[in-house]
């Protein structure tokens, strides 16, 4: 079981209290009141409008407006509609959904119920990565409690609204976190992403209109409906309202989870909350949003952690996974670990991705060994550039961006490997 976050706000404030994961404990702290309010007092469109006005951005990586996504669900359509909760958290550096599943399963279920009411969905599939055994047990327990209390099933809270929820376990494939790869996996197939259009709102799970949202996105919803859009906008920036749970890892004194408003400066997260770099060493670079997002060098840590500011620095918030690397770190080794991961996890459908991830890793590995030529560095940049925006899903982009970021800010590390014909960072982490 995970430790409660070091800094908590509305999402995680009760996570250290033993009875909070139970339905009784959740209700004692006001749980399920927002769902009751939505279903009994609000029209579905009103719920969607409130979430739109609140400005809730999806917390699964892309940052798309949740309310807008819900509004894409067809209204005059007789087919059954579904929600999918993406709990396939597998972005390296990200571990926030795990605690939301372990400690806040009812909060997430309440968000699902509200979204179901808003979109007219009759069922939700919660897709949990196969390795998350304990979180899955907690979610199953919460679902059983909600059914027993009549909060799920044929007659939700006695209102006549029907909603069923069930869990599907993944089986170890990063690509199933991509929403259409997830849908394929949910249908019992290889998790190979689908071409869009058609988008899931038209053709999603089992061919039916579907909305896919991340665990954290659903978890914010009860707070927005319960306390209002204006209250929600009191956290974060004008364009990026609310809090998020930053997962801090790597070379810091206190790695762990921190729930903070969007727009919190990266330097505040690294140096104040996570306690800075151990041993009095200096920071070299920080990946701000999970491994797919380009790194920022030490001089750019003043950036507020919200997409409108991060985009100016050619990176993004992603899943809020903050990976900190100190001055001993060899950035070519970091590139090697990153490129190995993407080579390993490419689903193989698209040539640019299948071949590109392999070539990137091969070139990086050669440079790290001291066997690279200066020309290799340009070829690496060229391969990464040719992988962008050419494939069925964004995986190839996610593989190219971190390498491009490392080349942009730490090209000298690559050049020194070539010139010295060895790794010039003997104190770096082992490969």
């Amino acid at each position, binding site marked *: 079981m*995970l*430790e409660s976050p070091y800094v908590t706000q509305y999402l995680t404030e009760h996570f250290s209290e033993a009875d909070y994961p139970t339905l009784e404990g959740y209700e004692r702290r006001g749980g399920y009141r927002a769902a009751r309010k939505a279903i009994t007092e609000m029209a579905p469109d009103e719920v969607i409008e409130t979430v739109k006005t609140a400005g809730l951005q999806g917390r699964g990586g892309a940052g798309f407006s949740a309310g807008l996504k819900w509004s894409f669900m067809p209204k005059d359509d007789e087919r*059954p509609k579904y929600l999918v909760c993406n709990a396939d*958290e*597998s*972005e*390296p*550096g*990200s*571990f926030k*959904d*795990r605690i939301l599943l372990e400690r806040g399963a009812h909060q997430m279920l309440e968000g699902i119920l509200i979204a179901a009411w808003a979109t007219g969905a009759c069922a939700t599939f919660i897709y949990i*990565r*196969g*390795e*998350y*055994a*304990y979180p899955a047990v907690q979610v199953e327990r919460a679902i059983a409690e909600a059914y027993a209390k009549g909060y799920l099933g044929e007659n939700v809270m006695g209102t006549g609204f029907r909603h069923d929820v*069930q869990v*599907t*376990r*993944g*089986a*170890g*494939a*990063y690509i199933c976190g991509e929403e259409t790869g997830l849908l394929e*996996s*949910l*249908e*019992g*197939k*290889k*998790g190979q992403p689908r071409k869009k259009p058609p988008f899931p709102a038209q053709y999603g799970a*089992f061919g*039916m209109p579907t909305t896919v949202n991340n665990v954290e996105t659903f978890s914010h919803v009860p707070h927005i409906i319960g306390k209002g859009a204006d209250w929600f906008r009191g956290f974060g920036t004008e364009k990026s309202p609310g809090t998020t749970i930053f*997962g*801090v*890892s*790597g*070379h810091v004194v206190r*790695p*762990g*989870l921190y729930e903070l408003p969007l727009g919190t400066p990266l330097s505040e997260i690294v140096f104040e909350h996570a306690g800075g770099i151990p041993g009095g060493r200096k920071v070299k670079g920080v*990946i701000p949003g999970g*491994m797919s997002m380009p790194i920022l060098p030490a001089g750019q840590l003043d950036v507020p952690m919200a997409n409108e500011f991060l985009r100016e620095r050619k990176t993004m918030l992603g899943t809020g*996974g903050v*990976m900190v*690397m100190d001055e001993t*770190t060899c950035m070519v080794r*970091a590139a090697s*670990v*990153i490129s190995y*991961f993407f080579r*390993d*996890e490419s689903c193989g459908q698209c040539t640019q991705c299948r071949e590109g991830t392999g070539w990137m890793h091969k070139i990086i590995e050669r440079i790290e060994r001291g066997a690279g030529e200066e020309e290799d560095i340009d070829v690496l940049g060229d391969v990464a550039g040719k992988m962008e925006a050419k494939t069925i899903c964004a995986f190839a982009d996610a593989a190219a961006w971190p390498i491009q970021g490392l080349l942009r800010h730490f090209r000298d590390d690559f050049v020194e490997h070539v010139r010295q014909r060895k790794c010039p960072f003997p104190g770096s*982490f*082992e*490969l």
Partner: protein
Amino acid sequence: MVISDETRSKIEEAISKYPQKRGALLPAIHLVQADCGHVSKECAAELAEIFEILPIQVMEVVSFYNMFFDSPQAKHHVYVCTNLPCSLRGSRSLLSQLESHLGVTAPGATEDGRIFLGHEECLGACGYAPMMRVDDEYHEDLDVEKAKQILDSLGK
């Protein structure tokens, strides 16, 4: 029949929860593995019959996912995460010391078939590195001694 009646009835129950039969294929493979340890050719053929698909369609799903196996497995699966956040906190040296402790080269199993040792890509424990997954359980904030003790306590 290699798939037991008990597992078959659990598979039928899983099928009833999905709008299309095939939706229950991943849950069914999880159930078969829990029962038989891996998905043999015979298991795949029986699953194919239950799901009214071809055995090759079962096997292509088995081969796509890291947690599904088509050959007999060691009793315990141990994976050390070697992704970047864990590597920054010494997971690779932990893995190599566990390799010498067990006398195996990862990925590989001990001769007695007790432990399979491998590396894995990000298990969502980045703030508690280094870490390893032992079967269904996570062990976090590890040091070498603690990790060795955990491995030594695993039964045959």
